[in-house]
């Protein structure tokens, strides 16, 4: 605060990284679009033969295109097999003949159910302490595989969703081809590059699980190790977010310096911020990316500003303490090696891109910052997780066009496809299941006494309420960031089972709805645009979409925000 110049200067590095990723997004998005639409891409000579080999092993004919029913069955079956395998692996992880970590027992069925569902649904909400509850075999053969395949499934569903706009034969693609291409062409190459950069930035990368030594003062300290660089790379790229350590990206091994923090920001942003361009490239309308990226950026910058403003303010609670100097750039829950802008941009990107990694403690964030985080998980689409975020944004757009069309008397259609009763029905159910998945478990938890609000002050109870709200919101949005409260133990049977169900429904119902919407478009022949067609490639439409998104979300979730973060502010927080 004393030096305003250094204050401005400290925003320089994050601005450069943000601008660089945005500048690269159209190129990477166009590449993603080519991957989605089965067009030849960069590196065809390498990827092509690899994929053909995989199709052979899978027994899949890549030229076979599926109708929605078959696609959905393939998608659900594949995910069920994956989650079931990891569930069994976690329960019996101590009996694996290799890659065991001594002293770590098998998980209880409910914790294994929660954990396998969590990583399989791209949520990565952890109810375990990784260091002392997950063996190396479970990490590598279970959770890391889920991180790749759940991100790949998200991209596959987006590809299938987009095909509805360009096809007219009633098919929406081949699930196994989609996930294979997404993993082989996008996730693996970028993960490998990212992991190499992380290695050079000083992250541990070894199959040893820990190292012990006598500290300077004598006692023994044991620190966990592992293949951190390779884990961190796919964890952030695939919007997973489940740390190889409990402290996640606040742990100095996952995020050792400001430079690694900046690189992590870029890695998290890459796919979600490129997705509008991927969509535009896939439907061959370059300008169609504009309203989406515009909407994403407006909402994102408001959110980021709220987080920074909240952290810059001094905590009025601590002001009465004599001789305590509240530095506006550091407060509880932050790490010394990141400046406030570096920490805040990481955290906001992480929650808004549905990664859910933490480099600061969300529980210690200002209430206004917590509100901002919650809002990102309510919309799920600014920019949202890998694949699914763009899917949610398109679904919101369909409703926005439908409502807008009704208001100005235009035909509700998008890219030459009529938006009919079916599409609106599925879109609405997809959006409405989100508050149901949050509020029903929240109310049941509080009424059932599974979480008891403390009576030591309004600030404490409102914070605890917010943390339970945050938990179910994070699970329903497949985000995975956790706020935590010292008054609530969320590793109980209740939280494990209910949380797992919320994550599974919150993931697979909306994805099936997206497939259904795609199907109802894919059976239509495209119409030429008439005088009644709403022009979506316009500034007006972008502002309309932004306001529509904000108002719709506020209407659905304002009561919860009022009881949580706003009450904390009212209590002098």
């Amino acid at each position, binding site marked *: 605060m004393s030096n305003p110049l250094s204050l401005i200067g400290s925003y320089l590095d994050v601005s450069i990284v943000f601008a660089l990723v945005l500048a690269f997004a159209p190129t990477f998005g166009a590449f993603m679009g080519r991957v989605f639409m089965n067009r030849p891409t960069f590196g065809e000579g390498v990827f092509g033969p690899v994929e053909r080999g995989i199709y052979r092993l899978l027994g899949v004919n890549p030229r076979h295109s599926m109708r929605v029913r078959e696609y959905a069955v393939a998608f659900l079956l594949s995910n069920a097999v994956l989650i079931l395998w990891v569930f069994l692996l976690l329960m019996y992880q101590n009996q694996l003949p290799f890659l065991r970590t001594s002293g770590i027992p098998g998980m209880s069925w409910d914790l294994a159910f929660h954990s396998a569902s969590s990583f399989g649904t791209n949520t990565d909400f952890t109810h375990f302490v990784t260091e002392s509850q997950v063996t190396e075999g479970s990490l590598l053969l279970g959770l890391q595989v889920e991180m790749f395949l759940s991100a790949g499934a998200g991209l596959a569903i987006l590809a299938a969703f987009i095909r509805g706009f360009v096809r007219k034969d009633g098919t929406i693609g081949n699930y196994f081809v989609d996930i294979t291409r997404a993993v082989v062409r996008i996730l693996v190459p970028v993960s490998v590059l990212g992991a190499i950069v992380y290695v050079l930035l000083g992250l541990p*990368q070894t199959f040893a699980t820990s190292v012990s030594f006598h500290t300077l003062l004598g006692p023994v300290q044991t620190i966990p190790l592992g293949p951190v660089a390779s884990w961190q790379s796919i964890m952030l790229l695939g919007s997973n977010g489940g740390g190889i350590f409990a402290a996640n990206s606040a742990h100095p091994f996952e995020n050792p310096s400001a430079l690694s923090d900046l690189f992590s920001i870029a890695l998290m942003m890459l796919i979600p911020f490129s997705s509008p361009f991927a969509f535009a490239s896939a439907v061959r309308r370059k300008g169609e990316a504009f309203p989406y990226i515009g909407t994403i950026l407006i909402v994102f910058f408001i959110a980021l500003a709220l987080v920074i403003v909240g952290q810059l303010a001094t905590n009025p609670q601590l002001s009465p303490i004599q001789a305590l100097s509240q530095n506006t750039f550091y407060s509880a829950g932050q790490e010394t090696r990141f400046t406030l802008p570096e920490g805040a941009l990481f955290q906001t990107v992480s929650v808004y891109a549905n990664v859910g990694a933490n480099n600061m403690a969300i529980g210690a964030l200002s209430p206004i910052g917590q509100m901002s985080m919650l809002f990102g998980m309510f919309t799920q689409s600014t920019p949202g997780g890998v694949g699914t975020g763009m899917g949610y944004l398109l679904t919101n757009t369909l409703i926005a066009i439908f409502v807008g069309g009704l208001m100005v008397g235009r035909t509700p259609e998008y890219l030459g496809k009529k938006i009919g009763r079916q599409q609106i029905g599925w879109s609405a159910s997809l959006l409405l299941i989100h508050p149901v998945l949050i509020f029903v478990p929240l109310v049941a938890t509080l009424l059932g006494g599974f979480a008891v609000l403390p009576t030591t002050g309004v600030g404490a109870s409102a914070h605890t309420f917010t943390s339970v709200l945050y938990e179910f919101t994070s699970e329903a949005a497949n985000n995975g960031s956790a706020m935590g409260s010292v008054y609530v133990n969320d590793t109980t049977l209740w939280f494990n089972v209910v949380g797992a169900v919320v994550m599974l429904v919150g993931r697979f119902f909306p994805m099936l709805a997206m497939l259904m919407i795609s199907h109802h478009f894919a059976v239509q022949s495209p119409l030429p645009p008439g005088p009644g067609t709403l022009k979506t490639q316009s500034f007006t439409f972008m502002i309309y979409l932004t306001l529509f998104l904000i108002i719709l979300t506020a209407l659905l979730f304002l009561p919860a925000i009022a009881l949580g973060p706003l009450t904390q502010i009212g209590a002098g927080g």
Partner: protein
Amino acid sequence: MTARAPRVPGPFDTIPDESATERPIVPPGRHALLGHLRASIVLVILGMLILGLGYPGVITAFAQEVTPLTANGSLVSYNGTVVGSNLIAQNLSAPWLFWERPSPVDYNSFNGSPTLLGYSDPALYNETKAYMQEYGPYAVNASVPEILVTVSGSGLDPDLTPEAALVQIPRIANVTGLSMAALQSLVNANIVPPLLGFIGPSYVDVLHLDLALEKILPAQYRSS
């Protein structure tokens, strides 16, 4: 060839490569479900071999070759023995040393990450006061930076801001009899500036600072 879209969309073209590479030439077939089950199982097995073992294996081989020091935890040696990690805080709360930030998990990653008290929780006031009592009385004529008496996100933060190190000098001088000026220049010599002048903050690595301090400590306070 009208590959690029015009500003105002024209009539919808058929997508040539969509039809070229992916025409539905095969009907689902009678055993489609079994086929999908097989594909799903093989996908998981391939995932375990390539994504679960192959990928981290290759990266580990690379890391152990190129950056063996950091790949194995950035361990720090002092007088020939390992005393800590560059990146992980340890308990240094001896009266004659610079202290790390407080850690509710006892600087032990296996205890998980600390659950922090809420911003608006009255208990935060009490907790901060308690930490102040521990750290505060030594701060003569100075105010205690918040960072020194609040918990970090990981509980393992190995660094301090320069102010949070400087504020501990009166205590160390008092205990050890070293001069304030000597300690001050020790801290100043160990400040890590922002990379390139604008990436990251200025900070002090506490273990490094204490290892430097060890060299000038009176013999009875030295650890080795």
